[in-house]
């Protein structure tokens, strides 16, 4: 063993090699197909089961089988664990497990590591028969040390082959065992997790992986000179641990939505993979449509004839659904549309996070198309907001768009197990006779609301149309009716807005700087605000869940701060870039909306680098803004 305590920047405590920490960030990076994500998700689940706060996020290559030992092949996962709740992926990693010396460079480019990061690297490449590989390894190790990483060369493959015939397939569970030892995870939880992960495989496969887990655990116990303890706080509350897409799928089922109509698209579709496993036992069904347009058309047809349906997509699919969204607004068909946002425009960054669909969702359809838009900010909200969306869609006879993103979709976090309620489920389809002379669009002039007849209701017969129509559902070319109907559809938003409360300010109610966020960035923003406040900055934040209509009272909150800045993962011009002036500067999307609705000179802090926003970068911005 070349590894010694002297290599550690912070020597381990003696006599124990164990060190206690509040939180740590672990990354596993490998070639695509080596199972790093499976190991990391398992590690996250085990940690959550021990009562730690956990957030995991996947590092996904663009191709299914990219060439091995390239930066493009980097596939992996980040697991951040802490003593308290963890709400985001954090800053630079503290410990990295790398299956070869090339893949970490993809993460180095993204500034994922720092001086002092522990680097546990597969050592077999150092003895490779191919001189190029051998040299590449030696150079990289030297480079890693130069960068200040603390390198541990680990004979992973050699050790794995003692317990399994195929090192490529077994390495991940061996690494899981090693991490379980380093972080003092209960081995029994690890074993239970392995059994769960391979539940669809043969007993032989399960046994091999259990052996590997134990082997990795024992190897680390004997050979590594450091261990970490991250004390957990068991709440006594029953928890579930899952990613945002799984939470969405539970939300769909718990809302009693019986038709999920979709077309495969990254990063939304894993929601349906999960749902497909059990939804038929819960009285629902998934329709995999022939294309994105047909998927929403089918959902609208199904909603029109019965219970509110859901369609789920991401940016490019949302673009294709545009015309049908317009129809659902015009004809007032309740519908839930879930958009798990990814990088754009066009095909963009399919596996990476962005919050760039906000304006497209609000204004992407020709004509005026008022609709309700929500954005969950935690994984738990991914679950809750689907239930909420179905109820709003039905009460307001309107499509509701739920904006999640790749960060929430792939991030795994524990949250209290939901206590399912029968009233969350959709009610049976009303088949009672439609009230005498009742019109299909009997708009209430105060709210714009009306009740919809459903096929099967005698006396309610009408023809739904995307053409301008009267209360009777009749096609009309009367300019006054179109004006009035547009106003009534718009009025529904104002009516819904009356049910909302102003957002809670995180921090003091007034100060020098207010950050405004929406969606998955909440954890990072609030963490940075907390750190800045500890340093004495008069900074607070608010986080919007409702984007259309927006929560009330925003202008009053903004007035109490000297400066307001939105924090978003979508594009904005750098105010200092050439040709950019305060007049022509293109702001990030929420900033644009808030400037328009409040006339407050709101600034924005945004990027489209495809990475979850880091608390450290927000903290830096805060320091600059408040001259700290």
């Amino acid at each position, binding site marked *: 063993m070349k590894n010694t305590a002297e290599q550690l920047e912070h020597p381990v405590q003696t006599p124990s090699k164990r060190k206690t920490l509040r939180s740590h960030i672990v990354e596993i990076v490998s070639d695509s197909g080596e199972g790093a994500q499976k190991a990391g998700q398992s590690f996250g689940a085990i940690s*959550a089961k021990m009562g730690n706060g956990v957030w995991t996020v996947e590092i996904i290559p663009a191709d299914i089988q990219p060439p091995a030992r390239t930066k493009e092949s980097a596939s992996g996962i980040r697991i951040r664990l802490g003593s308290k709740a963890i709400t985001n992926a954090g800053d630079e990693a503290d410990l990295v497990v790398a299956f070869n010396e090339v893949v970490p460079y993809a993460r180095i480019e993204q500034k994922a590591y720092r001086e002092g990061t522990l680097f546990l690297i597969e050592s077999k490449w150092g003895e490779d028969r191919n001189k190029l590989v051998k040299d590449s390894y030696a150079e990289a190790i030297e480079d890693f040390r130069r960068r200040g990483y603390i390198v541990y060369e680990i004979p992973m493959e050699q050790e794995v082959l003692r317990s399994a015939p195929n090192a490529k397939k077994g390495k991940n569970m061996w690494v899981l065992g090693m991490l379980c030892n380093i972080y003092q995870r209960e081995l029994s939880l690890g074993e239970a997790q392995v059994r*769960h992960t391979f539940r669809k495989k043969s007993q032989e496969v399960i046994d091999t992986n259990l052996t590997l887990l134990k082997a990795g655990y024992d190897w680390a116990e004997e050979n590594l000179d450091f261990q970490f303890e991250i004390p957990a706080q068991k709440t006594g509350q*029953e*928890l*579930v641990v*899952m990613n945002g897409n*799984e939470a969405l799928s*539970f939300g769909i*089922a*718990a809302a*009693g939505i*019986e*038709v999920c*109509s979709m077309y495969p698209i990254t990063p939304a579709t894993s929601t349906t993979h999960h749902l497909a496993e*059990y939804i*038929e*036992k*819960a*009285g*629902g*069904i998934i*329709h995999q*449509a*022939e294309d994105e*347009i*047909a998927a929403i*058309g*089918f*959902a*609208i*047809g*199904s*909603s*029109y*004839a*019965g*219970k509110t*349906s859901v369609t789920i997509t991401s940016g490019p699919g949302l673009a294709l659904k545009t*015309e*049908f969204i317009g*129809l659902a607004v015009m004809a007032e068909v309740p519908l839930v549309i879930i958009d798990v946002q990814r990088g754009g425009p066009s095909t963009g960054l399919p596996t990476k996070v962005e919050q760039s669909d906000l304006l497209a969702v609000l204004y992407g359809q020709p004509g005026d198309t008022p609709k309700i838009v929500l954005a969950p900010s935690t994984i738990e909200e991914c679950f809750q907001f689907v239930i909420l969306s179905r109820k709003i869609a039905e009460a307001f006879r309107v499509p509701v768009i739920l904006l999640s993103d790749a960060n929430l979709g792939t991030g795994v976090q*524990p949250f209290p197990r*939901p206590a*399912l309620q*029968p009233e969350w*489920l959709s009610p049976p389809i009303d088949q009672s006779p439609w009230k005498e002379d009742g019109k299909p669009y009997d708009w209430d002039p105060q709210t714009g609301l009306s009740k919809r*007849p459903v*096929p*099967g209701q*005698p*006396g*309610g*017969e*009408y*023809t*739904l*149309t*995307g*053409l301008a129509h009267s209360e009777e559902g009749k*096609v009309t070319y009367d300019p006054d009716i179109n004006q009035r109907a547009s106003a009534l559809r718009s009025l529904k938003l104002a009516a819904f807005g009356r049910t909302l409360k102003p957002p809670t300010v995180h921090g003091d109610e007034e100060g020098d700087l207010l950050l405004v966020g929406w969606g998955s960035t909440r954890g990072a923003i609030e963490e940075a605000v907390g750190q800045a406040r500890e340093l004495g900055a008069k900074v607070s934040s608010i986080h919007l869940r409702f984007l259309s209509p927006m929560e009330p009272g925003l202008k009053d909150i903004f007035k109490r701060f000297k400066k307001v800045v939105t924090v978003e993962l979508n594009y904005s011009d750098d105010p200092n870039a050439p040709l950019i002036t305060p007049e022509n500067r293109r702001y990030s999307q929420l900033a644009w909306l808030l400037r328009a609705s409040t006339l407050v000179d709101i600034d924005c802090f945004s990027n489209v680098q495809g990475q979850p926003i880091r608390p450290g970068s927000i903290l830096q911005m805060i320091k600059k803004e408040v001259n700290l």
Partner: protein
Amino acid sequence: MFGLNTECILDLETPKKYFTLDDYKKGTARWCPGCGDHSVLSAVQKLCREEQLPPEKTVFVSGIGCSSRFPHYMDTYGFHSLHGRAFPVACGVKFRRPDLNVFVVTGDGDCCSIGAGAWLHAIRYNMNMTVLLFDNNIYGMTKKQTSPTSRLGTISNTHPHGSVLPPVNPLQTTLGVSNASFVAQTADWVRGHLYATIKAGYEHQGFSFIRILVRCTHFMGELSNEMISNKEHLVMLNHESGIIPDESALKMFARQETHDPTDIDRARELAESEDVHLGLFYQDKNAKRYDQYGAHNLGFSSGQKMAAIESELDRYAI
């Protein structure tokens, strides 16, 4: 008691409403005088009355175009959707509602051009619905543009010197898609045959695709006249398990041919021939139906649903 059937007594107490033609009519059809769509509307309204389809249980779904105005003239439920999108909407309507009678009304542009992708998949889904393709070989609503089924050389506003591509053959296409279950052709001016075909389509348990040759007298007057007068090219397909029109319709055909509708190879030959065949080209009563899958788990109780979700949540519990 005394052998009385209690169901009969109940029937006497609450007599079923008898639906007349007027119960299915709504408004005045705005198609041009002489347009073939009118006769299809009459035939469909007659079918509804003959079959006593409850208006509240009947849904007409259409796309966009002249023919797609059809649902507005039916006093049933209707869904006048988007251009090319009648099929996905209709499939969504039917998926969880086996009790609804679903009809799709579409045109040659709507089905064979902008909606072609959805058309192919709707054939494959084979959901129980009756599809009426109003094929008039032209875009009428947007004022005479070449349609996918316009004959080669058709003069239109987009091809003033004649269209340059051979047309799509909707029968050939439908017969080429896997899981096709009912393919028939009729014409608006052969009323007895038109009615008999729509009825056969309604009775077929699956995706009944009926191409109706429809005259657009306004933009395609010459073609319309030719279609009516050229009796030599018109052949009626004849078979005991095919479509049997009334006597008056039979008289209109100079030529008849016996065709077994289970013979898909011959059906394809007929679809591709120069002659115009009216009748049932193909029927497969055993083709897999996707609407049966859609309706296989209806009506679960709240308890059943919550139990299934709880059991899945257990797997994620700590």
